[in-house]
């Protein structure tokens, strides 16, 4: 059996939507988990550290933008793709300013979403490789340092 190397976390308060999307992504050889609100998402991230998070914005309790902020602070390696039904242009700008990898409108085409997830993962790996290369040259201590440097730019 082919190893599922990309870990994805789908976060959406619509349980049926999250579960169905997760199932479709699993059929595309991705390792997918689900969380149904912001707090649950953060607790799952702590345990599982996914590579890519597919995140809804308007959720009960913790808003997706708050989740994104927390993720960027505590887990800058995780790539976040916003997948929202009713985001505004302002939301899109804000998500990108906070370091979201991409911003998609719901319902999205599954092949397009899969492509974005793989692209986000590839970028994550490349960043980590660059960080390792720099660390070997002694310029940066860890991958996290280089990401912090990039965020300052």
């Amino acid at each position, binding site marked *: 059996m082919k190893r599922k190397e990309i870990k994805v976390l789908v976060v959406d308060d619509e349980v049926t939507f999250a579960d169905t999307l997760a199932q479709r992504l699993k059929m595309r050889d991705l390792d997918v988990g689900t969380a149904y609100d912001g707090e649950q998402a953060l607790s799952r991230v702590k345990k599982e550290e996914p590579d890519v998070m597919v995140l809804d914005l308007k959720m009960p309790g913790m808003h997706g933008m708050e989740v994104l902020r927390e993720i960027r602070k505590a887990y800058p390696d995780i790539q976040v793709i916003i997948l929202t039904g009713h985001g505004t242009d302002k939301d899109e700008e804000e998500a990108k300013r906070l370091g979201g990898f991409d911003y998609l409108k*719901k319902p999205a085409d599954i092949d397009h979403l899969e492509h974005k997830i793989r692209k986000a993962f590839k970028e994550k790996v490349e960043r980590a490789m660059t960080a390792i290369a720099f660390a070997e040259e002694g310029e940066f201590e860890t991958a996290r340092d280089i990401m912090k440097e990039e965020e300052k730019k």
Partner: protein
Amino acid sequence: MGNSDREDLRFLQLNFIGRILAGFTHEINNYIAIIKESVGLMGDMIKAGKSGKNESRQYLEIIASIEEQIERSLDLFRYLNRFAHKMDMPRVSFNVNESMEELLALMNRFANQRKIRLETDFQKDLPSIQSDPAMLQFLVFCFVREKLDRLDKNSRITVKTARRDNSVTIAMIPQGNRVEAETERLYSPEIHEHVIRLLGGEILEREDQGIQITLPVNMPDVSSGDGG
């Protein structure tokens, strides 16, 4: 009512309609997204050649889920359609319970977002009233929105109707912890008083028991001409 108050009322009514429409489109978009993913999943399963007995059960479950989303969408469409037609009827005989049920269904998303439950406690066999249903919904919307903003999550708001002599009362009773919230323009006591006067009713507000509106079964003629 001065020009500025009239403009405020118009602004608030447009704001009310805008929010109801935003809530409606958000919900419908969610249902369509679920339907799209469900249909997509069946397509994926067919492409993967999944046609065993276990899969048959899964197909049926997916179809049931699609039917559920369609039912939810149709319910919401019916509520919105009735809501929209109320705007054409400034004075009509209507059932307050039905009118409240429709409003709360359209407001449910706002409550869900704040993890607050909207509940009803309707008196059965309430007499129909002669009044302005759109204006009444606008008023109740303003009050419920205010309570939603000022309650902590896991609270609830009960909308209760009852008959009292020759009038009908609608009470909005919050239960839960209060939180500090910025007061929006939506909560203008002057405008609310004006609206309730147009409806020939009365507002009774009590800190611990919420707000109660009393409406006469027959709305009196108020020919101020600024009802909006």
